[in-house]
């Protein structure tokens, strides 16, 4: 796979006006280059004044870029308010969504921006302990950045690195806390929220690495600067991982609110879009062609931007087969802890595989719909709900394909899988550490 950064195809003039890209330098930047560009991180020096940053983050409208789009200041305020001798902050770079590459790229080319954000947020909430949770383990860029920062005495807190297991749910907040505590990366039931009782019982602030990079810039340039990009309701920019029919994977920093077609059009003909990754939503073409990269417009299709995975499925592939393959993966990635998910997801996946095969039993589609309804809202984490969102939208968007397959036909002329899955599918039950 090739990953390229902000080629000139997306954004164009609009991007220049808002100063994008904000997060992604053209080439990997060491600490010297980073400091030359941005200056030292603006620590506030006392806890009273650290409240200023939380206020600025609130005014900026920054939301979490790991997928849930939760207002960042709210989690910060809860941890800042907590009376505890020990408080924990975690930069979440687990990027357990197999189609997402943006956090990996950000950590490679702008590690110091992420680490600035981690330290600044740590100061603002009074954290006594900082962690970095990474899918690939420590890369040379991260280790170098940490060493360079240590030698300059730049950071208030040492950073502990923990590697996430390559499981879809490993980056979920409670799973992350369990892994950092030495256990398997399995979700737990909430409440309590990790902001109240997280790692070892300590109030714990978990933020995606891209979120922290934005925070590091808000600390320097303020909320008004941040809001110069994006929409009023969803300010700023976001990193996206884009799959287009030309099969080249690209990471773009895009202004929120840009037309999706500026990111997704090009190359061969497209039959459908997938927005928000494997917990995301299939969108029909051409009905969705006018949508923008914003939850405010996507919600009409019950979709959201998630962690920024955007796919334009080429017309020569079978969307039903693609959806069935990914659903099989999602079922295998159930943590197997909750009865409805453990029982329902494999049945849903088997049903979808049957629909994607040649011919199917009359009741199969209705079975899948019923199981989808049964698992929704009944897991300790959002895995059943996210999987159902993906499956239901596939049943709708690829309904004509289901009818074709029922007659033993398929519209695809290219059988090569398009959506990426981890090599060597999962895995044994004890593979969560």
């Amino acid at each position, binding site marked *: 796979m090739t990953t390229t950064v902000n080629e000139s195809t997306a954004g164009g003039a609009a991007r220049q006006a808002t100063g994008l890209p904000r997060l992604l330098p053209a080439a990997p930047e060491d600490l010297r280059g980073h400091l030359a560009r941005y200056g030292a991180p603006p620590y506030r020096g006392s806890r009273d004044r650290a409240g200023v940053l939380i206020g600025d983050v609130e005014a900026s409208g920054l939301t979490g870029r790991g997928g849930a789009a939760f207002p960042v200041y709210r989690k910060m305020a809860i941890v800042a308010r907590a009376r505890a001798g020990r408080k924990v902050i975690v930069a979440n770079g687990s990027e357990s969504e197999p189609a997402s590459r943006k956090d990996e790229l950000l950590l490679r080319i702008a590690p110091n921006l992420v680490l600035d954000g981690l330290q600044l947020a740590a100061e603002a909430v009074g954290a006594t302990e900082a962690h970095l949770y990474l899918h690939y383990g420590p890369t040379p860029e991260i280790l170098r950045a940490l060493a360079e920062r240590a030698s300059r005495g730049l950071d208030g807190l040492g950073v502990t690195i923990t590697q996430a297991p390559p499981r879809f749910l490993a980056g979920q907040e409670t799973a992350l806390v369990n892994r950092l505590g030495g256990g398997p990366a399995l979700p*737990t*039931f909430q409440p309590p929220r990790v902001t109240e009782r997280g790692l070892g019982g300590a109030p714990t602030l978990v933020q995606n690495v891209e979120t922290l990079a934005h925070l590091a810039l808000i600390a320097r340039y303020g909320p008004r600067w941040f809001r110069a990009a994006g929409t009023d309701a969803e300010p700023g920019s976001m990193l996206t991982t884009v799959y287009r029919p030309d099969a080249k994977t690209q990471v773009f920093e895009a202004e929120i609110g840009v037309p999706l077609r500026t990111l997704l059009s090009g190359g061969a003909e497209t039959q459908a879009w997938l927005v928000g990754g494997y917990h995301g939503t299939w969108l029909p073409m051409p009905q969705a062609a006018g949508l923008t990269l914003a939850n405010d417009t996507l919600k009409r299709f019950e979709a959201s931007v998630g962690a920024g995975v955007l796919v334009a499925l080429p017309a020569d592939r079978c969307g039903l087969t693609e959806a069935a393959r990914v659903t099989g993966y999602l079922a295998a990635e159930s943590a197997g*802890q909750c*009865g*409805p998910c453990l*029982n329902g997801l494999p049945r849903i996946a088997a049903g979808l595989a049957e629909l994607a095969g040649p011919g199917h039993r009359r009741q199969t589609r209705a079975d899948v719909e019923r199981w989808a309804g*049964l698992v929704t809202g*009944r897991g*300790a984490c959002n895995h059943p709900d996210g999987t159902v969102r993906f499956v239901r939208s596939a049943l709708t968007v690829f309904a004509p394909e289901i009818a074709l397959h029922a007659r033993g036909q398929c519209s695809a002329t290219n059988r090569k899988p398009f959506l990426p899955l981890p090599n060597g599918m999962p895995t044994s039950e004890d593979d969560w550490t």
Partner: protein
Amino acid sequence: MADTLKVNPIDCTGHGVCAELLPELISVDEWGYPIVDPRPVPLALDREARRAVAACPALALKLMRTDEPARSR
């Protein structure tokens, strides 16, 4: 203020005793796991709800305080 029934789905083993004791608010799905009425427990069923919570062998059924008023019916 009223209480709402919640299941911790990780702890729940699908024993089914809750649905037997409180069929007004709890049914079971086709795999034997409880489907709980998400609305506040009506005052008239408060006792039965507490009994069901106490009887859960996995300690998975909880009554949680919510801000919504209790339904009377």
